[in-house]
């Protein structure tokens, strides 16, 4: 293994305070944004996939369009909105973790919505007909649909989390990569790369991968337990 691995191990072993801060900001950001996106995307996706209502087609098109928005454009829009001269300046959210989470929610929710919609469309028929046949209420039917979607909810969360933790375009714009505050793994990697320190960038990248791996393993174990 190359020296990048050595450097990554050294970085972690040394318990570098700035690295720990970057890790904790990264975790806070990606865990929250993927969770919020999940809470929005799952019901929305199930609704779009399982129900027929006026405006559904339009919403689907809108969702697919939002899926294609480049993160940096999303970041730019938020930057302009929340800038010191922007219309939402009084909220004082620019360069905070909160707005990074918000921008990521906007990026990730369409992804999760689409993910859930595809799944719900497949299973909605039998789930709904059977529930209707038993005279179950709409709410109970929705809960059943949710319960049937355990597996895609887990994979959806992983999808959102992976996207959140790996995303750089939007968070660097709205977060500003401020040390000790809004600097996350990806923006730190970008900074090191810009400084020409590729090996430190790769070392951070390795840590990111390992984190992602750990998260994936933990969730697949949990998924096995819950989804069986």
């Amino acid at each position, binding site marked *: *293994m*190359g*020296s*990048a*691995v*050595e*450097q990554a191990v*050294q970085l972690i072993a040394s318990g570098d305070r700035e690295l720990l801060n970057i890790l904790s900001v990264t975790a806070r950001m990606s865990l929250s944004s993927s969770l919020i996106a999940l809470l929005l995307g799952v019901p929305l996706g199930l609704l779009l996939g399982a129900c027929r209502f006026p405006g559904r087609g339009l919403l689907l098109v809108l969702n697919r369009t939002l899926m294609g928005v480049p993160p940096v454009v999303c970041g730019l829009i938020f*930057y*302009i909105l929340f*800038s*010191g*001269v*922007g*219309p939402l*300046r009084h909220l*004082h959210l*620019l*360069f905070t973790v909160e707005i990074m989470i918000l921008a990521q929610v906007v990026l990730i929710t369409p992804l999760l919505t689409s993910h859930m919609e595809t799944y719900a469309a497949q299973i909605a028929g039998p789930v709904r007909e059977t529930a209707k046949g038993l005279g179950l209420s709409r709410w109970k039917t929705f809960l059943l649909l949710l319960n049937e979607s355990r597996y895609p909810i887990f994979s959806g969360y992983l999808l959102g989390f992976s996207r959140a933790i790996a995303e750089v375009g939007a968070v660097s714009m709205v977060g*500003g*990569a*401020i*040390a000790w*505050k809004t600097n996350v793994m990806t923006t730190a990697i970008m900074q*090191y*790369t*810009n*400084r*020409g*320190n*590729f*090996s*430190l960038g*790769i*070392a951070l*990248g*390795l840590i990111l*991968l*390992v984190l992602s*791996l750990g998260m*994936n*393993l933990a969730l*697949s174990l949990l998924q096995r337990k819950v989804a069986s």
Partner: protein
Amino acid sequence: MKKLLALVLALSTVLGLLAGCGAKENTAQPTTEDTANTETNDAPETTDDTAGTGTEETTDDSSAVVVDLTILKEADESMLNTYSMIAVNPEAPFTDADGNAVSDVTVNTAGADALMHWLLLPETLDLAANYGMEEYGNTLFYVLEDAPTYEGEIPAATDETKTIRLSTTTSVNDSGLLSYLLPQFEEAYGYTVEVQSAGTGKAIEAAKFGNADLILVHSKSQEEEFVNAGFARVIDGMETERVSFLYNYFVLCGPSADPAGVKDAATVLDAFAAIAEGKYPFISRGDGSGTHTKELSLWPAELGITEDPESFADYTDWYTSANAGMGACLVMAEEMGGYILTDKATFLTFVANNGVME
């Protein structure tokens, strides 16, 4: 269980591949003494003589020359690199993205005052002037002889004034000066300084968007434009909006063999002319930074090189517009055996770290 194993296997493969990249990057940098075949350098060929030299933890052979890039031209009057601070005026003619006037922009004036005053304390200026001696054996910044100083009181932070947004250039940030000075300020008075770093152009733009309380940059023309547009204010005890206090020199670097004969040029302008004449590779920041602005002013006028990509379309065989940070450009120049204009502080840290930036 099988699935899990497959997952682990797949990921370790990815890790291995990435680690492989890392090693290659590392070995590629130091082996560029012979610049002719950098492109075709293979990891197996180069690992022997460079094993371990790529990272900074090998203290034993760190004396070995691993960076070929050397300073060829410096301390020329036209290469003066002056750093100035400017406090943002809350009454400035701010406009939003559509060009409509915006009046109630929040600017932490008290915080900006405190930070500027602190940076101008004689003790702080001393710290700045000596910065780098320990780590690099060379100071990175000089204090301007006519720099204003501040002797008054500095108020402690309050809830309203606590957070100070400083927009600065990558060169200041990458030199490590701010991470050396600011914690002392923060500890003494309870402020938190949020540093955003970008090229001077972007750093000033951030302030115009109402996202900074003060700026610390190094491009006189862009600074004056900022002041003239009404974005600046004069802080207590100063005479001008633009407070210049530190300087160092831009340096023209290139391969030690110096094929363009830059060393023997009478002036920096002649040196640039010689590079253009012989079409020797040159790496430009190309990102609207202070260094980029300075570089543009040093080319012979008849070439007509500006920040507009059209203007150097005919020179792309030797002129590379990188649109990247100083460190990344230095790595590029080192690998291509090209010439480059850089601030001295960044260059010294680059060399001290064997061709990488910390």
